[in-house]
């Protein structure tokens, strides 16, 4: 027998040789890469290594992109049959599948998420979104919006840093299928996969100007939101920014969809399948470092099983493998940015000072880069800030309840309404709870599942509209009676 008594997994790093990152990028406008004027660095949050210089789009760049999108809409895209438009989307889906490893590696380098997740979740789902929506392009008259649904025209799309490529797919695929052209801005810290997607558009021979990508920060986003040449705004991000956008477009005729924040309850009833519930809790809050708007960040536990579940949860959390995102065995990667890490630290410090009990999984965090150990707070009440505000990190607040109605009431006691989880082996209770919960996505005996055919989006302050499925498609079409 070997001398080693424990099963230490040797490093199993994915090779980064498959990607070639340019030292500097411009924008993708009118089918061509054009140089930017100002630049800012994008870094690997796991190492703080500067990966490339990203262009900061100003007014002229956004104007050029909108102009290119308008021209493509008027001269090409709106005149093309749905059948032909769909073929471009199928092509894009296939090329994304062909280059999936490259996308996964690049996403992990730029975002800090584990390669296992970018490889098994982000990239395959992104390709699936194009495949799904490709099939809608020639069937719009069956989308339930009347016999002659029309595209809006030019869509301005602003996406977050938590699922850079996947959010791009959620936005671009339905927009193109419905016949819009787009100006898309990836998040400041995660532009690289969007720029690689621009290459895919070129390989697919997508007509110039149908997809335009401008990189930049919030100032670029504001230019898009306020641009008079844009007909439709789609935004995924914080509720705070969502409200600013809602106010900005109030005097205009722009159509708007918003996918905003959440503080999802994950309710475990006493008759739940305990081990799968524990997995669901872990998946709910530690998937993608908790950088998920629909993360199950409030664990709402029935008191009769609270001790057992918490003990199992802590044991399970101790097995979460935190570290190098490029290692194929890593479960929890790097926090996306220093700014986000500071926000997580600040809110968890408030949790301490408000009297909640912190417990973090024992793990060695790398010296460089941005890291936060998987953490839970017990003894949390509805009044605590960590029970009300979105932390957007690997931090779980634990609350308890005695009766099913009390559990539901606590779950609903928030201005957010994006998602919720329910765990019970009793069918009638599952259906009862899913009716009671005020949230757009209910995961019963599962959590954080996504599919292009499944509408996603929130109630209340979690946003306007849905993405995915027929409901999501309709956001990119005119034909509904209300405006």
């Amino acid at each position, binding site marked *: 027998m070997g001398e080693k*008594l424990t*099963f230490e997994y040797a490093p199993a790093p994915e090779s980064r040789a498959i990607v070639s990152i340019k030292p500097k990028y411009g924008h993708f406008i009118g089918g061509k890469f054009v140089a930017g004027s100002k630049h800012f660095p994008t870094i690997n949050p796991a190492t703080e290594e500067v990966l490339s210089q990203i262009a900061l789009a100003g007014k002229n760049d956004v104007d050029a992109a909108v102009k290119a999108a308008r021209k493509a809409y008027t001269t090409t895209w709106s005149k093309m049959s749905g059948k032909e438009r769909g073929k471009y989307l199928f092509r894009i889906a296939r090329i994304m599948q062909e280059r999936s490893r490259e996308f996964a590696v690049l996403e992990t380098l730029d975002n800090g998420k584990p390669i296992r997740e970018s490889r098994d979740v982000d990239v395959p789902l992104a390709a699936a979104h194009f495949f799904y929506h490709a099939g809608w392009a020639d069937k719009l008259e069956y989308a339930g919006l009347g016999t002659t649904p029309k595209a809006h025209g030019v869509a301005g799309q602003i996406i977050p840093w938590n699922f850079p490529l996947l959010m791009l797919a959620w936005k671009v695929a339905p927009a193109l299928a419905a016949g819009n052209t787009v100006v898309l801005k990836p998040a400041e810290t995660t532009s690289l996969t969007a720029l690689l997607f621009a290459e895919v558009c070129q390989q697919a021979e997508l007509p110039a100007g149908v997809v335009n990508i401008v990189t930049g920060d919030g100032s670029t986003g504001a230019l898009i939101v306020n641009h008079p040449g844009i007909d439709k705004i789609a935004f995924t991000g914080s509720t705070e920014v969502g409200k600013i956008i809602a106010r900005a477009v109030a005097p205009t005729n722009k159509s708007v969809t918003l996918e905003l924040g959440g503080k999802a309850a994950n309710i475990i009833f006493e008759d739940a399948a305990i081990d*799968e519930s524990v*997995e669901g809790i872990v998946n709910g809050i530690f998937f993608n470092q908790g950088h998920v708007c629909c993360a199950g960040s409030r664990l709402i536990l029935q008191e009769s099983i609270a001790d057992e579940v918490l003990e199992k949860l802590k044991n399970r959390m101790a097995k979460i493998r935190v570290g190098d995102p490029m290692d*194929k065995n890593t479960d929890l990667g790097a926090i996306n940015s220093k700014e986000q890490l500071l926000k997580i630290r600040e809110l968890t410090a408030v949790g301490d000072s408000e009297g909640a009990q912190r417990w973090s999984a024992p793990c060695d965090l790398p010296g460089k880069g941005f890291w936060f150990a998987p953490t839970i707070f017990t003894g949390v009440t509805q009044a605590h800030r960590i029970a009300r505000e979105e932390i957007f990190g690997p931090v779980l607040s634990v609350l308890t309840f005695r009766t099913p109605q009390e559990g539901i009431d606590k779950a609903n006691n928030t201005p957010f309404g994006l998602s919720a989880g329910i765990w019970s082996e009793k069918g009638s209770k599952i259906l009862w709870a899913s009716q009671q919960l005020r949230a757009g996505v209910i995961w019963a005996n*599962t959590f954080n599942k996504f599919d292009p055919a499944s509408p996603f989006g929130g109630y209340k302050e979690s946003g306007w509209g849905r993405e995915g499925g027929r409901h999501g498609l309709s956001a990119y079409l005119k034909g509904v009676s209300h405006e």
Partner: protein
Amino acid sequence: MSFYGLVDGTEASLKKYLGSLSGVDQVGADARAAMLATRSIKTTSKRWAIDTAISMVDLTTLEGADSPGKVRALCAKAVRPDPTDSSVPSVGAVCVYNDMVEIARTHLDLIGGQHVGVAAVSTAFPSGRASMQVKIQDTKDAVDAGASEIDMVIDRGAFLSGRYIEVFDEIVKIREVCGSKAHLKVIFETGELVTYDNVRKASFLAMAAGADFIKTSTGKVAPAATAPVVLVMLEAVRDFYAMTQVRIGVKPAGGIRNTKDAIKQLVLVNETAGPEWLKPSLFRIGASALLNDLLMQRMKMDDGYYASPQYVTID
């Protein structure tokens, strides 16, 4: 008997005990097992895993055509899996029908394999369809012939009909026959129990009744030791330890044919029950073809190129 204080031997107490178990969600368990199957085990950890897996193999022959010659060859392979490399560990045990126990024990002792156990399949293996008298005698024969491990099958008919107390009593009686001479492994035939809820229930039933090991399958019914079934059983032994401070072993058997599968099993153990279970006294793999694949992978790691079946023995 005390049954760890969990049941008192009556049907009512057994029903209450089994009724207190939480359910298992099939899709969730499948997803967890599938996620753990993505673990990438390389270099030093792979080498460690291969040797550990070899030491956990219950090298098995359970054919109507088994003969003394076949069993002696198996014993030789069990003690020195690779005749050209003495650093390869012996396997955990050989597993045979009970008329071969004496031959196996004698031969192992003769060739320096005193540390290798002999496991006998028992209680009218594989169907379990015989009278209690026959099952007891079957077990007695094996123990008397020198078996250090008894792999008994449960009465799946009784289990599926809800006659749990009958299954429980049978295990208790066979446990008595084993006494201090033999460890008891209880085979569920999970392919016939079908649901994970049943697997979990059978696990807790067998552990309370005195099993030292819980084992998935006979090898005669498919599906056998699937990853989620083993996951559910590992969760059961982990939870049973939390209740009783006693560690029960787990033995997947059937369908584990190559190194990749075996390493996946070790990952399941490591991340479910925990590293404490990563030893032959608490985890065994019932297999026959697996051993040669482990040896070939071991050669590849040592030599740097792929091995051929010509260089491993076929016994």
